[in-house]
C-alpha cells in the first residue's frame, strides 16, 4: 500500500499526508469522545463553543439546549431512529399489510417469523450492488439528489416533537418552517429528472413538479386553521393547545385536506404518477442504482414518517395522552396509526389521471382548505371557538 520512502521529499509528503488525515478526523472522532468523557469527568471546557465563536446566535435557529445530550436526541427522535427503526419497520409493515389485504403472503423467507428480516436482506442487497453512473447524466447533481432527498426529509423530521422534552428543534415559526422545507422537494425531484438525462426520469420529474406544487398549497392552507385556533406558529405550543380537544374534531375539513395533500406530496398511490411503474418505469428514480436508490427511497420513507408525525402532531394531539404510557410512546402510536392509514390506499386504489389530479388539487382541495380557514375564522370571531385552546 505505502510507497517505499526513498527521498526526503517523499518523507515530507508522507508526514503532511498524515497530518492532513489527523486534522480531518480529529474533530470527527475527538469531539464526540471528548463529550462522552465530559459526561463522566466534567472538564468544564466547552470545546464546541471554542470551535464556533458565537453559538448563542445559532440557538435562535435551532433550540438545542445543553450540548451533551445532543447525541441522545439525534439518535432517539431524530434521523437515525427514523431511518433505522421506523423506516425499516414501515416498509416491512407496508409489504405485509398490503399482502394481507390482497390475499397474498408477502415476504416470507428472510428471518424466522413472517420474513421480518426481509428489509435487512434488502439493505444488504442494495449495499452490495454496483453503483452504476449512466454516461449521459450530470454527475454532481445526479449524485447529490439522494443526499438532498434524505437531508430534506431529515430536516422535516427535526421539526416533529416526540415528547414534551424530546425534540430536536422548536423554532418560534415552526409551522412556516414546515412550508419552507416542503418547498425543497419539487426542486429535488425536478433536478433528479433533469440530471438523469433520460426520458422517463424527465417525464417523472415534470409530473412530480406539477403534483408537488399543486398540493403544497392546500397542504399549507389546511394548517392555517390549526394556526388560527392555537394562535401560534410554534409546533410545541400547537400540541399543548390541544390538551382539551384534538384538532381533528374542530378541524375535520383541514385534517382531510392535509391528509390527502400529504398523500400527494408523498407520491403515494393513488397519487403516484411521478413514479408510475407501469408507464414511467420508476419515474424520476429510474436511473438510480444500488445504495443511491436506497438513499432516495430512505428519504421518501422518512418523509412518510415525518408527515404522519406532523398529522399526529397537528390533528391528533401529538404526544398528549393518558399518563400510563410515556408521551413519546403515545406519539409513536398515533403516528403509526396515521402511517397505516396512509399505506392503506396502495392496497385498494387505482392511480388517478394527471388532469384529475391537478384539477382536484386546484379546484377542490384549495377551495376546501380556504373554506376551512374561513369557517374557522368566522367561528373564532363569533366567539364559538377561541384562540389558544378551547
Amino acid at each position, binding site marked *: 500500500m505505502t510507497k517505499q520512502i526513498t527521498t526526503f521529499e517523499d518523507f515530507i509528503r508522507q508526514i503532511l499526508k498524515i497530518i492532513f488525515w489527523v486534522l480531518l478526523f480529529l474533530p470527527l472522532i475527538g469531539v464526540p469522545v471528548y463529550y462522552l468523557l465530559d459526561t463522566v469527568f466534567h472538564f468544564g471546557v466547552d470545546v464546541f463553543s471554542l470551535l*464556533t465563536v*458565537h453559538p448563542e446566535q445559532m440557538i*435562535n435557529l435551532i433550540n438545542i439546549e445543553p450540548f451533551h445530550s445532543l447525541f441522545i436526541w439525534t439518535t432517539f427522535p431524530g434521523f437515525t431512529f427514523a431511518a433505522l427503526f421506523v423506516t425499516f419497520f414501515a416498509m416491512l409493515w407496508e409489504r405485509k399489510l398490503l399482502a394481507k389485504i390482497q390475499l397474498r403472503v408477502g415476504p416470507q423467507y428472510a428471518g424466522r417469523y413472517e420474513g421480518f428480516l426481509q428489509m435487512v436482506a434488502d439493505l444488504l442487497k442494495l449495499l452490495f450492488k454496483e453503483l452504476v453512473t449512466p454516461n449521459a447524466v*450530470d454527475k454532481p447533481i445526479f449524485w447529490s439528489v439522494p443526499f438532498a432527498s434524505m437531508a430534506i426529509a431529515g430536516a422535516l423530521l427535526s421539526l416533529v416533537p416526540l415528547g414534551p422534552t424530546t425534540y430536536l428543534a422548536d423554532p418560534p*415559526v415552526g409551522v*412556516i418552517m414546515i412550508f419552507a422545507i416542503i*418547498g425543497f422537494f419539487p426542486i429535488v425531484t425536478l433536478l433528479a429528472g433533469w440530471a438523469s438525462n433520460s426520458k422517463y426520469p424527465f417525464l417523472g420529474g415534470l409530473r412530480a413538479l406539477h403534483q408537488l406544487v399543486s398540493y403544497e398549497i392546500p397542504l399549507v392552507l389546511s394548517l392555517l386553521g390549526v394556526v388560527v385556533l392555537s394562535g401560534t406558529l410554534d409546533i410545541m405550543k400547537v400540541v399543548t393547545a390541544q390538551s382539551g380537544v384534538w384538532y381533528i374534531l374542530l378541524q375535520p375539513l383541514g385534517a382531510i385536506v392535509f391528509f390527502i395533500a400529504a398523500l400527494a406530496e408523498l407520491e403515494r398511490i393513488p397519487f403516484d404518477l411521478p413514479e408510475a411503474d407501469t408507464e414511467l418505469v420508476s419515474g424520476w428514480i429510474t436511473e438510480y442504482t444500488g445504495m443511491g436508490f436506497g438513499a432516495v427511497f430512505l428519504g421518501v420513507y422518512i418523509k412518510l414518517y415525518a408527515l404522519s408525525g406532523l398529522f399526529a402532531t397537528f390533528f391528533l394531539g401529538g404526544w398528549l395522552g393518558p399518563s400510563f404510557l410515556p408521551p413519546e410512546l403515545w406519539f409513536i402510536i398515533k403516528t403509526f396509526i396515521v402511517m397505516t392509514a396512509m399505506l392503506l390506499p396502495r392496497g385498494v386504489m387505482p392511480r388517478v389521471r394527471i388532469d384529475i389530479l391537478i384539477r382536484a388539487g386546484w379546484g377542490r382541495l384549495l377551495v376546501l382548505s380556504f373554506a376551512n380557514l374561513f369557517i374557522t375564522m368566522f367561528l373564532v370571531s363569533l366567539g364559538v371557538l377561541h384562540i389558544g385552546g378551547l
Partner: protein
Amino acid sequence: MADIVFLAMMAVTVGGAIVALESREIVYGAVGLAGSLFGVAAFFFLLDAPYVAVFQITVYVGAVAVLIIFTVMLVRHETWMKEVTYSLGRLVGILTAAAIAVSLTFAWAASSSQLPSVPVPSTVTFLQIGQLISTSLSPALEVLALVLSASVLAAITLAKVEREED
C-alpha cells in the same frame, strides 16, 4: 472580527451568487442562486428575523427557484450553450463591480465609527409584524395583493396566448 459561521455563510451567499452568474451550465446557476438566497435567509436568521428568513426560503427556494429551473427546462439546451461572454465585457464588468465595491467600502469605512457595532435588543415578533401589516400598512398590503394577482394574470395570459398560436 467575524466568526466562522458568519464567514461560512458569507462564502455560501457570495459564492452562490458568483456560481449563479458564472457557471457554464445554467441549471447549476439556478442551484447556485437558490444557495445564495438560502444564505441570505441564514443572515436573516442571524439578525433575529426568523419569520422573514423562513418567508424568504419559502418564496425564493420553494417558488422562484422551481420556476427558474422549470423555465430552464422549457428552453432547449443548445440555446444556453450559445451563451458567449466577451472578455472585454467581462473586464469592464469586473472593473465596474469593483468600483461599486470600492466606493461602498469607502462609505462604510467612513461611517463605521458612527454605526453601532452591537445590535440593540430586539423584541419584534412575527405577531407584531402581522399586526403592523394588517393595520397601518393594510393599504400597502392591498396594493401588493393587486400587484401579485396582476402579475399572475400577466404570466398566465402570456402563456395562454402562446398556446393559441401553436
